[in-house]
Structures are given as structure tokens and as C-alpha cells.
């Protein structure tokens, strides 16, 4: 796998800047005292990252399958470690998405976080550094470092600023679950690095470099072990059924900002696309039935449970589990449509889930709960909030014209070709999604006003309205002009499908 250096494209290490700008902003925050200034500095840093990430999007060469904006510095040469950042069509869009979500979270929690605002802002920025690091690292161990770094701000955000009474437990549970996955991930990565030594291309050296590993030949038995280790770690993170139990608790107990990151950035699915598919293609093709099966079960399970939820956040947690199942079904179809669809779906969910979670947050701030029993008639009091909720809801329903549709459509297209009947079952998710989302919308926003707090609810304030507006416009634009986004990923996805094709052919050949 080749790469294009950052110096050739923009003349400076853009990715490192993106990774460390939030960290630098954190340091600056340490010297600021007033709460007002704190918020402004943090927002300024986040907006700068968003602006720079747009430069990344503009300068990205959409026709190239190569990794781009690459920067590499030797780290521990003796064991093949290097500080190596680069993005390709699979990862490039997650950088602006992360940057956008951080800005959205900062704006949405502008005045609602009163307890230790400095620490809160620092935790959010620390998360941003780690998350962008995760999306841009192409050295396995470097990736692992950022992956682990995310845990600290996540734990603190849930534990200190969570909205539920069980937040301490939820935070601990989350961290323990993630550490379990991390252990598997590290073993898998080390196995990959060590086995590289026996590949003919390696010259007897260790390497943890994704690009080098992608080009080396990997023995089948080793692949199976690595596949299960990596798949376990990423399935836990995604979360894919049956490893999902931490998500509802975390979304319910944690602050909305953290919920946005956990439900909006589908890092587990990204991990499959980034590492599992290219590095263990034979094993993935061989255990494809397992991924597809779990995906379909997740789709149905998540949707059915979501149908009976009375709390919007719990509903969204199970909707998220259902959507992850659908994305995994797309991956398991092993064709360009399925992979493109899965990628589009998780980018779209970044916007749609965030939109729905913000709605939950806005309702919670106004009414004190997001429980259906206390809601009803909100649209009369808060028409702007209702409009925003409707657009996000339609996105979640995957109505054509919203960003939800192209991804689901491509996944169905891919899955019908690969699995036939499994896809037919997956179609039901879209109906169930329509049911649970629209039923919630109707019960929360229409009908009689049942409580005094709803009666007194105020509509979106200007800052909230801007946040909601940006997300709404993004949902509609991606829905009407999906090709703009698909152009970014198509070259890399084609390349990935080529690798899977070779793998499938090889598997079939050995079986004969």
C-alpha cells in the first residue's frame, strides 16, 4: 500500500496538527480563570480543528486509493514502532465528523455544565485528541495508545457530569468492558506484528505498520486467531449484539455530550473496516456468516427492544444497537455496495444519532425528564425544537431525502446480492425504526400537554437553534447529494473489495 506525504499535499503535518490542537487548547485552558473565557477558548480551539479538518477534506485526492497526508517518524525502531499518521477514503470523513460533534457538544452544553466547567471542557478536548488519533493512526500500536487514551476522558465525563444517579457504576462498567476488549486487541496486534517477521517481504523485521501489513502475505491459521481477537474487541466497542449491554446504561447515566460521542462515532465498525477486513480478509470471508448472523439478530433485537422504550435515551441506545447490526450486515456482504453503505450509514448516524440525542438533551433540560409518560404536546410550546426533532427522526427512519437513506439502501443492495433472504429480514428494521421513532415523536410532541413543565417549556435559544440548524442542513444535504460523500470513499473501498475478492478466491481454492 502506497502513501502520499503530507508535505506534498499541504506542506505541513496537517494530521498531527489536528490531533494535538485540542490538546494544546487544553493546556491554554489551564491558564484561564473566568467561566466565560474558558468556554470561548475551548470553542475557539474546537472551531479551529473543524476548520483545519475542512482543509483536509478539500485537499484530499478522491480518485486515489492511497493513504494520504502521511507523516512518519521512527518511534522504537527496534520493535518496528513508528509514529505514523495517514488517512484514506475510509477514515478521512471521520476527522471532520469528530470535529463537528465536538463543536456541537460544546455549544449544546454551553450553559448547562456548571460543575467544574474547566475540567469538563478539558475532558471533552482530551477526548477529541484521542478520537482524531484513533481515526488517523496507521501504526497498530499508536492506534492502541490513542484507543486507550479515550478511556480516561470518557470515564471522567460519565462519572462526574453524568445525569443519572447510577453514573459511577455505569462509568466503571464501561471502562471494564473496554479494557477487556483492549486486552484482546493488544494480543491480536502483537500477533500480527510478530507474524510479519515470517512473511517473505519483511526481511526478518517486526512491524506494526498497517500499510506494510496490508501488503504482506499472512498465513491462514494465524489469521483466524487474529480475526477473533480483533473482532471481539471491535464488536464490544461497536457494540455488536451480544456485547451491547454497556451501551444503554452509559447513554442513560452519562452526560449528553458523552452519549453523542459514544453513539455518534461508531468506532467499532470503523475498526472492522480499518483493520479486520484488510488484515484478516480470509478469516473474515470464512466467518462472514457469523458476522452477518449477529448483524441480523442485532438489527431485530435492537429494534424490537427500542419499540417498547419509554425513555428517549434508552430508545436511542437500542436503535443504535440495531443500526450497528445493519452496518455489520453491510460489511458481511463483502461487495462495494455493502461496504460503502456501511461506511455511509455510520457517518450519517454521526449526524442523526447526535441530532436525536440533542433532542433528548434539550427536552431533558426543559422538562427534567425524557420519559414519555411526562411528555406530550411539546410541539405547541417548542415548534423549532419539534422541527429539528422531526428532521432527525426522519433521518433515523431513513426516509429518502435524508442522510439515513443512501446508506441503508446501499446495504440492502449489497446484502440482497450476497445473502438474499437475510436482507429481507433486515428490511424489517427500517419498518420497526419508522415505528419506534415516529411513535416517540408523536407521543412527545403531539397530543395534549400533560404537565406544567411542558407548559412552561421555552423553545430553542439562538445558540441551540444554530446547532440544530447545522445538523439539520447536514442531514438533508447528505440525503440529497450522497455522491459527494461516496466519492471520498469509493477508491479505497474498491481497493478493499479487491483484497477481499483475492481472499475469497484463495479460500475457495484451498477448500477444493
Amino acid at each position, binding site marked *: 500500500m502506497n502513501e502520499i506525504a503530507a508535505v506534498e499535499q499541504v506542506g505541513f503535518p496537517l494530521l498531527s496538527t489536528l490531533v494535538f490542537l485540542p490538546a494544546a487548547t487544553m493546556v491554554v485552558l489551564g491558564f484561564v480563570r473566568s467561566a466565560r473565557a474558558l468556554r470561548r477558548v475551548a470553542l475557539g480551539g474546537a472551531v479551529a480543528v473543524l476548520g483545519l479538518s475542512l482543509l483536509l477534506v478539500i485537499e484530499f485526492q478522491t480518485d486515489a486509493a492511497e493513504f494520504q497526508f502521511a507523516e512518519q517518524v521512527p518511534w522504537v525502531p527496534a520493535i518496528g514502532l513508528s509514529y505514523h499518521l495517514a488517512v484514506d477514503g475510509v477514515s478521512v470523513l471521520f476527522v471532520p465528523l469528530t470535529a463537528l460533534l465536538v463543536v456541537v457538544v460544546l455549544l449544546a452544553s454551553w450553559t448547562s455544565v456548571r460543575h467544574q466547567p474547566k475540567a469538563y471542557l478539558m475532558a471533552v478536548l482530551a477526548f477529541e485528541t484521542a478520537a482524531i488519533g484513533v481515526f488517523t493512526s496507521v501504526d497498530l500500536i499508536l492506534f492502541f495508545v490513542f484507543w486507550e487514551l479515550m478511556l480516561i476522558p470518557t470515564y471522567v465525563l460519565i462519572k462526574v457530569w453524568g445525569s443519572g444517579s447510577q453514573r459511577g457504576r455505569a462509568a466503571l462498567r464501561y471502562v471494564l468492558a473496554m479494557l477487556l476488549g483492549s486486552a484482546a486487541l493488544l494480543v491480536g496486534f502483537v500477533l500480527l506484528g510478530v507474524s510479519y517477521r515470517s512473511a517473505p517481504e519483511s526481511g526478518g523485521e517486526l512491524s506494526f505498520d498497517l500499510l506494510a501489513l496490508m501488503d504482506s502475505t499472512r498465513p491462514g491459521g494465524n489469521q483466524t486467531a487474529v480475526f477473533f481477537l480483533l473482532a471481539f474487541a471491535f464488536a464490544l466497542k461497536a457494540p455488536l449484539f451480544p456485547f451491547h449491554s454497556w451501551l444503554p446504561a452509559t447513554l442513560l447515566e452519562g452526560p449528553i455530550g458523552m452519549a453523542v460521542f459514544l453513539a455518534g462515532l461508531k468506532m467499532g465498525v470503523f475498526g472492522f473496516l480499518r483493520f479486520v477486513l484488510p488484515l484478516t480478509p480470509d478469516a473474515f470471508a470464512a466467518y462472514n456468516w457469523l458476522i452477518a448472523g449477529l448483524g441480523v439478530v442485532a438489527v431485530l433485537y435492537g429494534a424490537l427492544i427500542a419499540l417498547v422504550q419509554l425513555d428517549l435515551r434508552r430508545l436511542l441506545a437500542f436503535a443504535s444497537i440495531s443500526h450497528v447490526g445493519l452496518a455489520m450486515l453491510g460489511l458481511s456482504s463483502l461487495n462495494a455496495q455493502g461496504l460503502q453503505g456501511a461506511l455511509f450509514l455510520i457517518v450519517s448516524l454521526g449526524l442523526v444519532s447526535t441530532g436525536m440525542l440533542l433532542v433528548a438533551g434539550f427536552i431533558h433540560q426543559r422538562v427534567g425528564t425524557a420519559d414519555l409518560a411526562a411528555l406530550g404536546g411539546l410541539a405547541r410550546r417548542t415548534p423549532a425544537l419539534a422541527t429539528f426533532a422531526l428532521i432527525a427522526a426522519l433521518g433515523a427512519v431513513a*426516509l429518502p431525502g435524508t442522510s439515513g437513506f443512501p446508506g441503508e439502501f446501499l446495504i440492502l443492495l449489497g446484502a440482497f446480492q450476497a445473502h438474499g433472504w437475510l436482507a429481507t429480514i433486515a428490511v424489517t428494521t427500517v419498518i420497526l425504526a419508522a415505528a419506534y421513532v415516529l411513535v416517540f415523536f408523536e407521543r412527545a410532541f403531539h397530543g395534549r400537554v400533560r404537565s406544567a413543565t411542558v407548559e412552561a417549556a421555552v423553545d430553542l435559544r439562538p445558540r441551540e437553534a444554530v446547532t440544530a440548524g447545522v445538523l439539520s442542513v447536514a442531514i438533508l444535504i447528505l440525503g440529497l447529494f450522497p455522491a459527494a460523500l461516496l466519492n471520498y470513499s469509493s477508491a479505497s473501498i474498491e481497493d478493499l473489495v479487491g483484497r477481499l475478492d483475492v481472499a475469497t478466491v484463495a479460500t475457495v481454492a484451498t477448500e477444493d
Partner: protein
Amino acid sequence: MDTTGLTPLLALLVPVLGAAGVVLLRRHPPARELCGILAGIAQLGLVATMVPAVRDGGTVSVTLSTFLPEVSIALRADALGIVLAGTAAVLWVLTTVYAMGYFGTAPDPAVTRFHFYLCLTMAATIGVAFSANLITLFLFYEVMTVITYPLVTLTGTPEAIRGGRRYLAYQLGSAIAFLLPAIVLTYIEAGTFDFVPGGIFGPDASGVLLVIVYVFFLLGIAKAALMPVHSWLPAAMVAPVPVSALLHAVAVVNVGVFCVMRVVLDVYGSDLTGDLGLGVLTLVLTSATILVASLYALRLDNLKGILAYSTIGQLSYMMLGVALLSPAGRTGAILHLVGHSFSKITLFFAVGSIYLATHRALASELRGIGRQLPWTMTAFAIGALSIIGLPPTVGFVAKYFLFVGAVEAGQWAVLVVLSVSTLLSAAYYLRILRSALFDAPVAAHTGSTGATAGLLRPPTVTERGALVVAPMLVTAAVTLLLGVAPGWLLDLIRVVSE
């Protein structure tokens, strides 16, 4: 001649501008309605400018965005689309005028909502009419479902919400469960989403799969109200009369039938439809729907309910005509799409007028009302004659073509179905007309509360103003005009049907 041009897009954008105007002028009622009317006239003008281009079988197309690498959101106006779009535009203008009379012109937010969503519904109708491929069609089809929901629930009563929920559940549910898979499978078999006259499937496509996909299309296009996906239509009758009139005589149901026509003509093609036995399958399903709906209508007393079931039956006439797979059958089907719209909206307008004047909604309450509401009942009579299929109305001409088509296709059983259903429609419409025109009027407000009514002078029942009466007379006149001189319209229809 196939040309590219922005006219289809402009026809789509004009109603959106109209909607914006309605919101901006919401506090200035007559201007608010004028926005809708002007947008409707502008839309009609734009549609009319494309008639010369499509009359010789040409199209006007414009690509809006690339949806997927080889799939575009694209508009393409052809003769069939022009027929649907033109009909909708004319009736939109008339409905807006009628609504001024029906709702009054107070700055009531509900009325503003009505005009706003009406404009958007027209945009969606144009989008469906001019869709160049299945993806674009699906986009506007689904958008239409969502933006007509607030119209169905306009009054906000629990009953309206219930009806609206059923409407939404049926429409979204069937579209996702059947239409979406049908479109995906079509792409997998044909390799394209584009509509091509004569069909898009290659010779080696799997027959069994194509039959399944076809059934999915029929079930997925619930807007065409083929049984068993019809029950949203009576449920949606909870809406006020102007809404029912435009949605359930014109926009929504026509879009449904139009989609089925597109599938038969431009996805499968008449030849393949015949070879796979799908024509006969459709004939059976539509015949069953026609007969069951007619029998059901006979049992009802609620006027809007009767009209709803009558519509279900008439929509199946149109699909039956296309499924005959003969030129005359197609001509009859498309002419009926236009003729039924004018006739049925006349009936809805009349029912609304009766309700405004008397607050009566049951067929059995109309005794002698013809003398009190002469204009309304004249219009009603013309509309009813057309639905039954008697000359000199457009309904007769359409049915004539359907009969010829059935003979051409050698489908004798269809002749029996058409005859029986004509008798059944005659039974339920003539029953109403006889009672309304020839029975003695009942005293106003009799019944349980009428004990003291005899002491007072009964309030006189009169027509409710020109804004209510005029649109009704115009649609009735068109029903007659198309019955007497359908030639110019048939020229346009024959581009598609022959």
C-alpha cells in the same frame, strides 16, 4: 424529441415557492390563498409549455444530483407525466378557491397549514410525475406520504390522529416492506433504475423472481389502494373535505396508480408483463377489488365513506385498463385517471357543500335536498353519472375504451366485471340522486332535538357562496366537456398508449 431543459425542475420549485409565500403571508388571508392560486397557475403554465415537446413521444429531462455513482436524482417529463401533472395543477387551483369558501379566509393557523402542505404536496406530485427513475420516484413518493400526514390530521382531534396514524402506518409500512425491496431487486436483476418505455429487464432475468418483485410493487404502492392495502383510504377520510378532495380524488391516489402504470409500462414493459402472466394476475386482483369495493359502498350511509370505497374501485379500473395490455385499454386507463379526478373531486366538493349548508354527512339525510341546493346537486349528479359511466360524461368515454380494450385483449370475464360494477355503482349513486332530487325535503333540524322546531321558522337551507359553488361547477363542466370533446386529450394520451 428528447431534450434537456429546466422546465420540469421549475414546475417542481414553483409550488415550493408557493408554500414559502403562504407562510410569509399567513397573517394576510386573501393574499395567502392567492399565493397558492398563482403558484398553481404558474405550474400549469410550465406544464403546458412542455406539451409540444412530449406530443411526438419526446421528453424534457434535467438531472438534479448524482445519488450513487451511476444513479441520479433526475426529472424527465413525458406524456404520461404531463397528464398527471396537468390534472393535479388544474385541480389544485380549484381546490384552493374552494377551500377559501369552505374554511373561510380567517388567519387561522390550521388553514395556513392546509395551504402550506397543499403546496408541498403539489411539489411532491410533480416530482413523482416527472421522475426519471425508480430512486427519484421513491424519494418523492415517500416525501409525499410524510407531507400529507399533517393534512390528514389537520383538525387535530383524537379521531383525526387515529386516522392519520393508520394512514402513515400503511403508507410507510408498505413502501418500506415491499416497494423498497422491489426497487432493490429490480436493480439487481436489471442493472438500472431508469424508466425505459418497453421495459428494462434483459431476456435472461429470472421469471419467478420477476413475478415476486411485481407482487411486491403492487403491495408496496399502497397509494393505489389495491386490496388488501386499501384501508388507509377510508381511515384518512377523517380529514376536512378540501383535503379529502385533493388527496383522495387527485394527488395521492393518482400518484399511486401512476406508479403502477410506470412499473407496467416502463419497468416491465407490456410484452414481459404478458409473458409472465402478470397481466392476468393484475386483472384478477383489480377485478376483485372493484367488486368488493362496490359491494362495500352499497352498505354504507356515510357520504365520504361511499366516495372512499367508490374511489378504491375506480382506481382499480385504471390499473385494470393498463393490465389489459392493449392500446385501447391503456387509453381508457389514462383517460380515466384524468376523468375520475374531475368527477370525483366534483362529488367531494358537493358533499362538502352539503355539509356546510346542512351539517349532514349521511346519504339517508339528503331527501329533497336538490331543491334547496340546486347547483350543488347538479354538480353532484354530473359527477355521479361520470363515475357510473353514462354519456355524455368523460366517465363514459373512459369506460368505452376499457370495454374496447377488454375485447381487443379477449378478456371476456373483464367485460362481465365492468358491467356488474357499473350496475353496482349505479345502484349506490342513483339511490342518493333519486332521494335528493325527487323526495320531499325534510324539515331542517328534525329528530330528537326538533320537538320545538315546529314553533320556529325552520332556517332556510341555501348554497354557501360562489367560492364553494364555482369550483364545483367548473369541475362538473370539465367532466362534461371531456365527455363531449376528449379529442385533444386523447391525442396526448395516445402518445403513451399506442
